[in-house]
């Protein structure tokens, strides 16, 4: 380990091949400090958990296929909705974004690795233990956590199952992992950029992750505080959230959503960065309004810190507070709109081709806009009295998160997979994957808008007869959506392990710009041991043209 590490800095005295290759077998993965290996680990964990949490969603949709009990009793149904949300947020989206950051940030800024490689190893390896502990609650006597991924007190404190303590510890581990990863990313971007890589030459993906990392540092400690207060209430006689002891259940929601709302931007901003890489490539045209995009990202993050009460409009918040948070929430749609308009302007008068990454990017653009517009509707407090906790909300946040996070992650994987594995994927299968995913996604979530407006509450295992038709459509869509991901699994596995797919060039995409395309495919185990020079950096930053 240490030898290798010194060797990378002292490569004149050592033979490249003998010291720079990865270790063999399981030791490579357990002890690795290489940003590419750790990126792969993050992405693999995320991929596995996506199928776990996706299966849970399909169980939920099966139960909701028709009124009356279908498959699950209400206890298990509540556990499924809880775990689906928790795992998708903390186990799928966040690790996948961290995996992309690990793989791409050093390669995009011309650094040889992350700034803190051992910390990087630890950040990842906390996660498998956190999720093993979380899942182990299914094997315990009594229920697994069943209070929704938002775990509102006192349902999650006084009235919660015993296994909640394991949930609390697991959230602590996830939070620790995220904080360490975020620190590492901030330090890397500040200190490890190639000398010629000034701030306004940074690729948008790096900018987005820098802002995201600051958001993580701002709010993950608050989540840790939140679950610690729960633990104190449960076992040490405090009454933070217990009105009978002088506490306030609404305090829980303030603390939770102070974390929870920025969390939404944590899930989405890196995806914005991915889209800002992909759309210019396949439009063969530089990103429109690079500077505006950078400022919009920063403003979204800052405003995102002061809108949390919009999740709590029906809790009896005073009118002044409701108005402040409504105006602040509406204001976020201005910088978000700027981003959508800039992506559209990038496409306008381009020279477009529609490879799979571009298809997913366009799918993102359309569906994220739909989700953003329903978000604008929800920001209006009076209407929110009707939308809150209905399926309209479920539809809204799935449009935003499935397209904003999942679609962008899938787009990123198709976009950079040839760079990672050295093999092109099957374009035909990729197109099938895109169309089935997009159709499945819309058939699943579009009818949920109607269900919510008609009055169906979220998180119910059984429903009134009038909701039957749309629920059946949703369930059919969910199965199309779910099974389409098996195509994705096949494509990724084949691209990693099979020799059948054609080899990729170092440029991979005709219109791609960026330092990552100046190195061979697959990317060597160590890259940019000497930083790229000014000419290379400038050539890779098309916004300077």
């Amino acid at each position, binding site marked *: 380990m240490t030898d290798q590490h010194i060797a990378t800095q002292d490569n004149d005295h050592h033979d490249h091949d003998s010291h720079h290759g990865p270790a063999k077998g399981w030791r490579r993965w357990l002890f690795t400090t290489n940003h590419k290996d750790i990126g792969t680990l993050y992405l693999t964990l995320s991929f596995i958990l996506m199928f776990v949490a996706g299966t849970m969603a399909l169980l939920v949709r099966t139960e909701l296929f028709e009124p009356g009990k279908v498959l699950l009793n209400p206890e298990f149904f509540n556990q499924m909705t809880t775990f689906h949300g928790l795992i998708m947020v903390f186990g799928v989206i966040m690790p996948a974004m961290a995996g992309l950051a690990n793989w791409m940030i050093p390669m995009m800024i011309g650094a040889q690795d992350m700034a803190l490689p051992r910390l990087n190893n630890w950040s990842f390896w906390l996660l498998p233990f956190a999720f093993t502990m979380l899942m182990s609650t299914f094997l315990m006597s009594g229920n697994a956590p069943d209070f929704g991924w938002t775990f509102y007190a006192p349902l999650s404190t006084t009235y919660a199952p015993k296994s909640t303590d394991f949930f609390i510890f697991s959230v602590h581990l996830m939070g620790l992992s995220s904080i360490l990863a975020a620190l590492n990313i901030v330090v890397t971007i500040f200190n490890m950029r190639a000398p010629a890589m000034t701030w306004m030459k940074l690729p948008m993906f790096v900018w987005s992750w820098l802002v995201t990392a600051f958001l993580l540092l701002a709010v993950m400690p608050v989540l840790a505080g939140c679950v610690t207060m729960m633990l104190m209430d449960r076992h040490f006689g405090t009454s933070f959230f217990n009105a009978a002891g002088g506490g306030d259940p609404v305090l829980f929601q303030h603390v939770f959503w102070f974390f929870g709302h920025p969390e939404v931007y944590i899930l989405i901003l890196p995806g914005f960065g991915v889209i800002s890489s992909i759309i210019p490539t396949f439009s063969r045209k530089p990103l429109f309004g*690079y500077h505006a995009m950078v400022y919009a990202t920063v403003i979204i993050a800052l405003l995102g810190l002061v809108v949390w009460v919009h999740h709590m409009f029906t809790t009896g918040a005073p009118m002044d507070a409701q108005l402040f948070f409504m105006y602040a929430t509406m204001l976020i749609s201005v910088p978000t709109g700027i981003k959508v308009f800039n992506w559209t302007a990038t496409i306008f008068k*381009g*020279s477009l081709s529609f490879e799979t990454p571009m298809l997913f990017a366009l799918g993102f653009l359309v569906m994220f*806009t739909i989700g953003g517009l329903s978000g604008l509707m929800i920001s209006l407090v009076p*209407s929110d009295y009707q939308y809150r906790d209905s399926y309209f909300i479920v539809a809204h946040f799935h449009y935003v998160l499935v397209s904003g996070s999942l679609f962008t992650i899938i787009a990123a994987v198709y976009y950079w997979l040839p760079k990672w594995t050295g093999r092109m994927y099957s374009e035909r299968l990729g197109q099938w994957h895109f169309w089935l995913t997009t159709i499945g996604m819309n058939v699943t979530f579009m009818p949920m808008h109607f269900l919510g407006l008609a009055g169906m509450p979220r998180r119910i295992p059984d429903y009134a007869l009038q909701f039957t038709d749309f629920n059946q459509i949703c369930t059919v869509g969910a199965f199309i959506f779910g099974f389409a991901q098996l195509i994705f699994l096949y494509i990724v596995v084949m691209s990693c392990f099979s020799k059948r797919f054609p080899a990729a060039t170092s440029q991979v995409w005709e219109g791609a710009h960026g330092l990552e395309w100046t190195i061979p495919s697959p990317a060597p185990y160590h890259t940019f041991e000497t930083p790229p020079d000014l000419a290379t950096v400038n050539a890779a930053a098309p916004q300077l043209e």
Partner: protein
Amino acid sequence: MRRIFLFVLTSFFAIAALATPGINMPVGVTPVSQEIYRLHMAAFYVCCVIGAGVFGVLIYSLIAFRKSKGAKAVHFHEHLGLEIVWTTIPFLILVALAIPATIVLSHIHNTDQSGLTVKITGYQWRWKYEYLDQNISFFSDLSTTQDQINNKAAKSPWFLLEVDHPLVVPVHTKVRLLVTADDVIHAWWVPELGVKQDAIPGFVNENWMMIEKTGTYRGQCGELCGLNHAFMPIVVEAVSPSDFAKWVTAHQARVKGDHS
């Protein structure tokens, strides 16, 4: 591929159109629910216009600027005027939406001059209604049988939306609602009355309704409250003031009878 997609899309909307009961928010029967409905529709139309603009440009670009049809990229990447325009116009649209929203919200918060006060308490998993000035208090439980839920009996038309003792209120009367809970957080939600108010243990939230039409209005608990969250519906019966007076007298007499 595109043909398949269009087919699925068309059939999807055809199915959606056939299954029309409950595709939109109910207009409702209270001044607040109607104001909310109008605000909701105004915001929806604004979103449609914005969506049409963005998607129009996008679809045009996707058709007109394809590399396979020989499109050459034009290298522009900044335009200050354009960026100012698409920052300012959305901002003005937001102001136009914020004004009516603020007005409606001030109506929701105005609980003055009510003619009747009902205290609503959420329990796991039932509602309790107390008429503070009439000395009436009762629990309201789901009346759908377990056999219907387990598919052992035919489902009644109001499956999961029926209770043994509905909340009875007079029409054309401002009813002040004091909402609280005994254990965990619940939410009292009846879409057609435009009321959703969280019921929070230890705190009392206020809301109000003035029903303009006699009838039966149904809703459900709106906040996950544990095992039987789906099984604590709300039924409100709005009757004429004279019928309400009769109901109050009959109820009080019955309670007195039970006690003697």
